[in-house]
């Protein structure tokens, strides 16, 4: 066992010395390989972080959202319906929500306008997200004007800019008072965009939804779990699309690695011949080459993964943000919480290191069975 380990160490030492002898070639390979791992790891880490963030955000979201439907489309919900909903057994809390979208031609972006349930701003004031503040250069005390539903101009003074920590959910948020909201959209008192309900027993959410559907047949009930699943599937789809594109890059790299290994230079073949002539077995050559592949691919994996980690968790993944985050004009300045998933690391290792080793093993074996007498001829 001791001899076996020492033999491996000696072969590893020879391998490292060999790698250093061809610095330029091996460095180029390491850079390309690391770049592939970096791209794949960035995509996986970022989409995973988005999913986690969505789950965290939805943790405190209401269990049920009730919308009124007319002609299959979302319509305003009358106050009377809220009263009916409050009588459903198991529902502890219900309230109507007011929200909508507002297009700002100056920033060429859509804002999400909402009336908060608690601590709404004073009439004529607005609390804005960091994205809006950045796009319009608006700070507390500045004024922002928008066209209302009837073409009139409504002016809001910025009361506060919402803190960065919750940027994913609040970047494009524009919070106003209920009266201002109704004036902006021309929605009469007693009408709401939709309603949210809390259920006493979380296990009875489905039952409560059934009762609501019986009570208000023209309503659509959205469960929190359904929203979470939608988020998941959207991120899965985007991540899948990106991975399909990157798989092409991995395959191209595997072909490149195979080409490199099969097209051993005359100098490398001569060296293998010398090693065999002086007493190395085919197995020793294979082991040495496997060590070479292992050192290269694991180094590239570690470098690529580390760079991806910094790219995603410290820089906010600027390279993949538009693909993975969605269509919004105003991207939140989102910096995900650092997190490493063991399963994900293993998947990436299998996706990158194994194809490289698999692509190089056959050409290496072909080179390793070179007749040792070639160096004498």
């Amino acid at each position, binding site marked *: 066992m*001791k*001899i*076996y*380990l*020492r*033999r491996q*160490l*000696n*072969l590893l*030492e*020879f391998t490292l*010395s060999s790698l*250093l*002898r*061809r610095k330029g070639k091996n460095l180029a390979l390491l850079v390309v390989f690391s770049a592939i791992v970096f791209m794949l790891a960035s995509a996986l880490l970022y989409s995973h972080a988005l999913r986690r963030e969505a789950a965290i955000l939805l943790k405190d979201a209401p269990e049920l959202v009730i919308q009124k439907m007319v002609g299959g489309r979302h319509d305003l919900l009358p106050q009377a319906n809220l009263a009916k909903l409050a009588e459903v057994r198991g529902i502890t809390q219900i309230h109507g929500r007011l929200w909508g979208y507002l297009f700002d031609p100056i920033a060429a972006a859509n804002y999400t306008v909402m009336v908060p349930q608690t601590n709404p701003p004073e009439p004529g004031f607005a609390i804005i997200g960091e994205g809006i503040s950045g796009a319009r250069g608006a700070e507390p005390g500045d004024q922002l004007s928008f066209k209302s539903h009837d073409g009139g101009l409504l002016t809001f003074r910025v009361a506060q800019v919402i803190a960065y920590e919750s940027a994913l959910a609040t970047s494009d948020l524009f919070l106003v008072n209920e009266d201002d909201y109704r004036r902006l959209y021309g929605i009469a008192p007693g009408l709401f965009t939709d309603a949210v309900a809390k259920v006493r027993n979380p296990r009875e959410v489905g039952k409560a939804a059934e009762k609501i559907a019986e009570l208000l047949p023209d309503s659509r009930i959205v469960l929190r779990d359904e929203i979470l699943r939608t988020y998941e599937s959207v991120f899965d789809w985007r991540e899948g699309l990106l991975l399909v594109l990157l798989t092409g890059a991995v395959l191209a790299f595997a072909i490149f690695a195979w080409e490199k290994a099969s097209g051993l230079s005359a*100098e490398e073949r*001569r*060296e293998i011949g*010398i*090693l*065999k*002539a*002086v*007493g*190395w*077995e*085919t*197995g*020793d050559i294979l082991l040495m080459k496997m060590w070479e592949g292992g050192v290269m691919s694991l180094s590239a994996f570690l470098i690529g993964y580390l760079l991806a980690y910094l790219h995603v968790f410290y820089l906010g993944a600027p390279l993949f943000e538009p693909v993975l985050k969605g269509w919004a004009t105003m991207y939140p300045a989102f910096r995900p919480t650092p997190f490493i998933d063991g399963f994900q690391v293993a998947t990436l290792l299998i996706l990158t290191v194994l194809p490289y080793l698999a692509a190089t093993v056959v050409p290496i074996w072909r080179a390793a069975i070179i*007749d*040792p*007498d070639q*160096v*004498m*001829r």
Partner: protein
Amino acid sequence: MIELSEVRKAYNQGKPNEFWALRGIDLRLSLKAVTVFMGPSGSGKTTLLTMIGGLARPTSGRVRLMERDISSLPEKFLTDIRRRTFGFVFQSFNLLKGMTALENVMIPAYPLGLPHEALRKRALEMLDLLGMAAKAESKAEWLSGGEAQRVAIARALINDPDVIIADEPTANLDGQLAEQFLEIMAELKARGKTLLMTSHDPRIRKAAVVDGIVWMQDGQIASSD
């Protein structure tokens, strides 16, 4: 004793460019002696050495090393015998570029599993024996022809083989370096090593250290003395 019976070797057998390099060699070589194979280019000298050293197998016939037939051994065993019994000095020295003289000498011993320090010490001893200790850390490509050859000899000796095989060892050396080589050969012979070499060099033929000369012609032995 190294014994060859009816050894024949063909390259590209069955193809239009088939070539018989050896055409039935019968030979007995004494151990602890210096034997030189001479003859024109293409006469089969180098091919014969590759058969004896286990670098290639004969197409037919047998090679026996101390009563053991090595021509039909599986590769693993043949490699083991080659590693422990033979040391090779190639015509163009075949040192690995980018590696130091010391690392080049260590190469044959890497797969033996010796502790690194012991391996290094042994390689340094070999270099010292050949007066090359001062050049241990020099890269192979920085060495002169004579220095490179001495490093190649040190590499051939690291596993303490009984037989040294040298292919045209003085072909790339001037007169003075060729003399030095012959001195090294005499020293190795005195240590009980068997030396087999091919050569065109008349200085080798006339050297006192040489015990026997085998003349070859067209893949056959023309004469021996």
